[in-house]
């Protein structure tokens, strides 16, 4: 019974992920990305990880997706926002994708102890919270330090060396021109 909603969510996710890379229209691609992320959230929800599903919607669609859209809007060029969706090397791309998938699948299946996850499938939100700031508090803090470093880096990159406020040069209008205009 559970496999039907799972299959539906997976189908939607895969289809929209395909549209993300195949759509020639940048805006459409971004919106398809939103649907793909929503589908991932639905997968989490079907599997009973409602906290993850909520966080997925909140962070990925509310955050990443929104930033992407704002980025597109701000950097809007004139009409014809089309980007070529056709790649030159289908075969090479296909080989690399399959290889990547194989490596990931092998790594996941070869990692021991995945079944003995620290939190079982019945973990409530409270359990997750306790685990995050209890047993795994070090990892939690390290991740937040990483985010802080990324934020500082972004600020450093974005900060221009602003000139002194008075350095704005006025237009030099020749005094004679002013006099002529006044007359």
């Amino acid at each position: 019974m559970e496999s039907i909603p799972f299959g539906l969510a997976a189908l939607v996710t895969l289809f929209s992920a395909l549209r993300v890379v195949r759509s020639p229209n940048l805006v459409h691609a971004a919106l398809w990305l939103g649907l793909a992320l929503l589908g991932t959230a639905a997968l989490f929800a079907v599997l009973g990880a409602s906290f993850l599903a909520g966080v997925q919607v909140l962070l990925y669609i509310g955050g990443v997706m929104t930033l992407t859209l704002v980025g597109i809007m701000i950097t809007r060029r004139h009409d014809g926002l089309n980007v070529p969706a056709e790649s030159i090397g289908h075969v090479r791309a296909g080989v690399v994708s399959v290889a990547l998938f194989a490596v990931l699948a092998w790594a996941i299946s070869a990692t021991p102890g995945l079944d003995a996850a620290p939190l079982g499938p019945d973990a409530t939100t409270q359990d997750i919270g306790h685990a995050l700031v209890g047993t795994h508090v070090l990892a939690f803090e390290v991740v937040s330090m990483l985010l802080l470093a990324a934020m500082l880096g972004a600020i450093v990159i974005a900060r221009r060396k602003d000139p002194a406020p008075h350095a704005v040069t006025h237009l030099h209008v020749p005094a004679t021109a002013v006099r002529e205009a006044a007359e």
Partner: protein
Amino acid sequence: MNELVHGALYGTLIATAILSTIAMGIWFERKFAGRMQQRLGPTIVGPAGLLQPFADIIKLLQKEDIVPRDADRGLFDLAPILAVVCSLGVAAVIPFSPSIIASDLDVGVLWVLGIGGLMVIPTFAAGWGSNNKFALLGAMRAIAQSVSYGVPLVLAVLVPVVLSGSLSISGIVAWQAQHHWFAVWPIVPGLPAFVIFFLAMLAESNRIPFDIPEAESELVAGITTEYTGAKFTLFYMAEYVHTLVGSALGAALFFGGWDGPFAPGLHWMVLKTLTLFVLIYWVRWSLLRFRADQLMRLCWTWLTPIGVALLLVSAAWVTFGGTN
């Protein structure tokens, strides 16, 4: 399967109730605005103009459906539908009485924030799809505004979450029914958090004094510039749904939801929701529109730091003494 049937049944009921309330809310707003401006408001259609909203709806639906030639047809058509879906979706986890709730998620607060955050997508789709500079400018303002006000909104909503120790909205309401309403006690994180929630909610639903995205004197009508007929009606409806559902959320998070003496829970919830709804109208018809920079200054230099401070106070309240 039982849960599915329950969700579909109650979801339909709640959605119908909300949409009917909105029809009457439009009548009430026009009357209320009229009285505040020393006018009578609608009087012709039906007794005391009560049938006015229906006349309005019939009028709107009769209008020609115009799609601009160079519009992005798919986005243009999708946007109004998504707007209604996102604003109605929030209502799914709000308990209108101990038993009347469409889906009692244990991460209800996350659902509310997540689905509320999705409102950016229809706004963008409408602004971009219309292929109109006013619509695009309106969408940019709306998105900047809702992203900024999302921060104080989350901070304010986290106060009841921390105080009650629950992420489920029905859990938060049940906690308040057992102990006390958060807007009343502890008054220091509670009441200011409600004020921040209220302001952020007004800003997220683009109501006056925060209706900069629709500033008709500058932007024609913002994202709805190119919309006519049924699609315009959907946007109009989505705004009202957003306001009403936001009121219900405020009532549930800060005023104890269905908790109250003498009457059934549903009555109390409806009373509290409508009180907040009227409060929004009152603000709307009393105040002028903010400027965009004033809006952003209010958000980032006042509401956000105060929100962080309130969150810390509520954490301290729970840790030291408090009522838990």
